């Protein structure tokens, strides 16, 4: 009888303990990419990235709608969606991975922490492993900011660039991700 009561209590408390994960999320993550060539520089920004970051496990996920990237020129944007990333077929770019190099305890104190992100990046229906260096910043108000930069090669993701514009689009595209998380 006594053991049963203890077990019963455990069954009630256990799930709440396991769910005491600290999660952060946003719908307004900022993702930009730039292609720099001697002929022209192309820059696109997206302020609608969604992301969830689980502090206890370090798991992180980011998703961006390809159509939400805005370019300087309307035609660039149309070509990006129509010809390169084929947004109708592959509407989202996603990243699923883990952040390492910190402990959940660290992030209770304001400061800047250098971390490593590893995981899988999916663009244009192709998934490739990705490792990037990043920074987590906890400001005194408790807001968590994450910043990382990495390089993406269009050819790795089966994005074909015709010979005629080969020199206008960089072989290596710089991607910058800036996310300000809110507690979920």
């Amino acid at each position, binding site marked *: *009888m006594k053991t*049963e009561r203890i*077990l*019963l209590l455990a*069954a*009630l408390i*256990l*799930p709440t303990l*396991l*769910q005491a994960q600290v*999660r952060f*999320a946003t*719908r307004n993550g900022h993702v930009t990419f730039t292609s720099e060539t001697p002929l022209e520089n192309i820059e696109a920004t997206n302020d*609608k990235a*969604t*992301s*969830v*970051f*689980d502090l206890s496990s370090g*798991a*992180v*996920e980011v*998703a961006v709608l390809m*159509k*939400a990237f*805005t370019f*300087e*020129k*309307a*035609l660039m944007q*149309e*070509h990006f*969606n*129509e*010809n390169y990333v*084929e947004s*109708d*077929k592959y509407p989202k770019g996603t990243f*699923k991975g883990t952040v390492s190099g910190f402990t959940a305890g660290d992030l209770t104190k304001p400061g800047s922490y250098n971390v490593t992100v590893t995981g899988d990046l999916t663009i244009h229906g192709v998934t490739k492993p990705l490792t990037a260096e990043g920074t987590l910043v906890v400001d005194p108000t408790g807001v968590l900011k994450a910043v990382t930069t990495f390089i993406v090669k269009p050819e790795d993701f089966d994005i074909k660039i*015709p010979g*005629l*514009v080969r020199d*206008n689009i960089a072989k290596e595209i710089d991607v910058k991700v800036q996310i300000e998380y809110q507690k*979920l």
Partner: protein
Amino acid sequence: MHRTLFSLLLIAALTSVRAQDSLLDLLGEQETIEYTDASFKTSRVINSHSLENTAHGVLDFKIGHRFGFLNLGPVEAFGLDQATIRLGLDYGLTDRIMVGIGRSSYQKTVDGFVKYKFLRQCKSGCHIPLTAALVAGMTTTTVAKENTWWYDESRTDYYTHRLGYNFQLIMGRKFSDNFSLQLMPGMIHRNLIRSAKEQHDVMNIGAAGRVKLTNRLAINAEYFYVLPGQLYGDNLTEEQLNDPNPGFHNSLSIGFDIETGGHVFQLHFTNSTAMYERGVITETTGDWLNGDIHFGFNISRVFTLHRPKPKEPKPARKRKKDGVG
């Protein structure tokens, strides 16, 4: 009793800690309104307007060129020795309203138009099945009065004789990534006509479509049907008298769109010499079956003059559920 309660609770506890497939599921989907785009590569199919507009703040410089008829034979290099051109500028006042002007060598015509896209086909977040636009335009020929077909010394030459108006409703749908189709009922008004056998208001209906072959290559076709008994040419032959519109033919054009960086090249075959509605619909004399076919091209080059601020995407309209407010 206690045992059953205990096992029930245990099951409940276990299921509640099951692993989530994706962390992002926690946020849920937020659907926003998205309209279809790129039904056609540019704002023209070949001679006709397409479902697309020039984007807000973008100036589109159009060069239209038609060589002579193919049936002119080898001495005339199958028409390559002759040329008819139209130079035009289109500008997007907003994403839905565009204006344009053009000047053609054919009849030394100046044309201007306004195009308003009042309905946009929805891809997600709303339920509009088609795109619809209205085009209203005006043309005036600037040839010297001695060279006009109506010239007569005994008659006063009014400027209004030179004017024509065109109205068109364009309705169409991008059925898939690769296939778009549009229907275009329209009317051309001509201030001056050849004889009482003609109509001032010429009713017509057009159809145009596109099949995308690759991301950068598409095949286009357009056809304008002019309702019979509205046009009547001069110097007709016996045979022509039996035609629905003696002396004139319906316009048919078939071509390719080739896209490169900032340009769209359109290469095509057409029996129309003009490149504006009045000329294409009411003044096409070429007959495909007779080899009266022009080889031609359009080049479209866009310049971004003004960069509008990116708009906040609108959240999708919620459909009212039955029985719930």
